[in-house]
């Protein structure tokens, strides 16, 4: 029996439905793949900043495994910046006070009393020397890490005649106006040729004010004694 007209109409319609279903499926699959992509680079490079008295340095560098594009010039372990300004802390000791064992406060030629953090009058120059900085690092691996400030210290202060005063004669207290809690750069004294004098937690600003003292427990020859301490901020 030949199919009637209604049956003829139905047959291709069924086939059409199948084809349409396949095409629709294919279209959906193609559409699902349409999505533009933005690849986020691994993160901003680490950044450190240190300010001691007058003058400063800011460094940007890549840590281990960093793939910054364009590449950062400084390699891991290198010194990214140097503050060429030398701040002087000094004291003059009266002849009748030499070796009396009474600590004498030193003063600085730094005029920096204002906090670089918020503009607050934090330190009291010339009695206090400002020290502050920050450490920026992205990524979970940077959480909990700290940047440290290390002092490189000669054994002695010396004069033109070659006389010496041990650097251990110099110590400092730490604090600032309106300050509370532990200092990031705490009180201490020079104890060796290389010592950590403070640290900065990741993604934080740290600052303190140092007041130096000369302990006067030795009796050196009369003269002008000098020595230079180099402070280095380094991050992991």
């Amino acid at each position, binding site marked *: 029996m030949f199919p009637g007209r209604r049956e003829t109409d139905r047959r291709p319609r069924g086939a059409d439905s199948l084809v349409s279903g396949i095409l629709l499926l294919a279209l959906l699959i*193609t*559409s*699902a793949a*349409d*999505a*533009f*992509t*933005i*690849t*986020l*680079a*691994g*993160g*901003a490079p680490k*950044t450190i*900043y240190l300010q001691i008295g007058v003058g400063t340095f800011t460094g940007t560098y890549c840590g281990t495994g960093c*793939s*910054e*594009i364009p590449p950062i010039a400084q390699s891991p372990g290198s010194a990214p910046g140097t503050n060429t300004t030398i701040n002087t802390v000094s004291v003059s000791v009266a002849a009748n006070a030499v070796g009396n064992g009474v600590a004498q406060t030193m003063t600085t030629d730094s005029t920096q009393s204002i906090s670089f*953090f*918020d503009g607050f009058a934090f330190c009291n120059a010339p009695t206090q020397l400002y020290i502050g900085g*920050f450490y*920026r690092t*992205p*990524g*979970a*691996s*940077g*959480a909990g890490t700290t940047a440290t400030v290390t002092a490189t210290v000669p054994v002695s202060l010396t004069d033109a005649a070659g006389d010496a005063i041990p650097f251990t004669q110099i110590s400092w207290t730490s604090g600032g106006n309106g300050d509370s809690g532990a200092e990031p750069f705490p009180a201490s004294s020079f104890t060796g040729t290389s010592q950590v004098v403070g640290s900065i937690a990741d*993604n*934080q*600003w740290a600052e303190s004010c140092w007041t130096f003292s000369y302990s006067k427990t030795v009796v050196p020859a009369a003269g002008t004694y000098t020595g230079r301490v180099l402070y280095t901020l380094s991050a992991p």
Partner: protein
Amino acid sequence: MRPLILSAFCIIWLAVVPVEARTTVIDDSATLPYNAALSLHWQQLEPRGHVNNLMVGTLQLRVRLNVAPWLKRSGRIYLVLPAQQPGGMTASWTTHGRLLPGHLTAGSRTLVYSGLVTTPFIEDVVQLTLTVDARRMGQAYPVNFRFEMDDD
């Protein structure tokens, strides 16, 4: 009496059936760049005051959406940022006017076009800014966007 009750039921039933818009992903494969690299930088370099640990990056996209299937029909186009790694992302953008400016967070979508589709393609220059929590950025991440059409 019974036929009348049945008719009333049908009318009520029809009235409460919601009309759902169909959502379709739009072919945006002509968008340039289609696979863009984005370098991020600190939104606030110095961690002052309330610590800001956000990193931000901006790039320009020439968006070209193939809306030919909806020609002469009305619809709403959304920019979608699916929930994905590294998480904690927000996006904001400005446009040259064909699409709407806006912002969205990961896992959501925002309307960028509503109305009649009059041309086979909708094109615009989009200045896209992505903001990410730096603490989540230990490695590179591909971030996928897409455009969706809701039929009216």
